[in-house]
């Protein structure tokens, strides 16, 4: 019985990881790719770890797995946040169907910080085209 639980979680995890990988390949801009990859980081890996926890069903290992999950919960979002932040700061281009941008012009180059919404910002930088290298 437990085996089927394990298989279920494993399969779910693996499938979502696969989807995330496809998304990484398919999505049109860096922000969307990151969004896609988050699925793997949370849903995918968590499922697989839970599968492992169920499989062993032992206190020590359970705590281990919980530890890893907590660690992931603490670190994965920070990584994503930092990457997205960096991408924005260096003006990585957004998909041309992007709807809305409250952050436009809010980055202060000198202070390396983000202005709050209310205060109007300096003129936004010129548009950067997504020139492909290779």
């Amino acid at each position, binding site marked *: 019985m437990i085996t089927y639980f394990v298989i279920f979680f494993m399969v779910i995890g693996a499938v*979502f990881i696969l*989807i*995330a990988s*496809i*998304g990484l390949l*398919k*999505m*049109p801009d860096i*922000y*969307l790719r*990151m*969004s*896609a990859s*988050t*699925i793997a*980081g*949370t*849903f995918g890996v968590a499922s697989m770890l839970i599968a492992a926890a169920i499989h062993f*069903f*032992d*206190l020590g290992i*359970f705590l281990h797995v919980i530890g890893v999950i907590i660690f992931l*919960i*603490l670190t*994965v*979002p*920070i990584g*994503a*946040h930092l990457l*997205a*932040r960096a991408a*924005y700061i260096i003006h990585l281009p*957004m*998909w041309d*169907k*992007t*709807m*809305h*941008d*409250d*952050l*436009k012009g*809010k*980055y*202060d180059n000198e*202070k390396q*910080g*983000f*202005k*709050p*919404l209310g205060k109007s910002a300096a003129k936004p930088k010129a548009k950067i085209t997504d020139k492909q290298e290779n």
Partner: protein
Amino acid sequence: MKHLLENIFLAFIWLTLTMKFELTNFIFGFAAGFVILWFVNRKHPNEYRYIHFLPRLLSFLLLFLKEVVKGSIRIGYDIITPSHYMRPGIIAVPLDAKTDLEITLLANSITLTPGTTSIALSDDRAYLYVYNVYLDEDVQKSIDEIKNGLEKKLMEVLR
């Protein structure tokens, strides 16, 4: 927090008493400990927080889990089908969270949810800029969704 430790301590005592170092036994011990703590502290309102903390935490986790599953399936669907339904954009979410810990936990929860990513915190810490893959037609609605959803539940847990 003191009570959480107390609870865990009780669970371990339970483990040593029963001499069965197994996961199920620990969960049982933890649950029993919780009930005992509730029983002991129910007359002291000051000591009562922990007893509320656990249900609130559970409620937050459930919401969070729901968001995660929902976001995963939504994006997953988008990925495996040929056409794009995304409506991405960056929104500024005004914050109620004040302390470092609150802001951090909120931002992380947002990022962990597939489909949303917290990009930046404004310098005055009043706004959290969030990247959202599926913006509503009405941007404010998307903002409220976060404010009334994750932030509210999180604040309930932390305060």
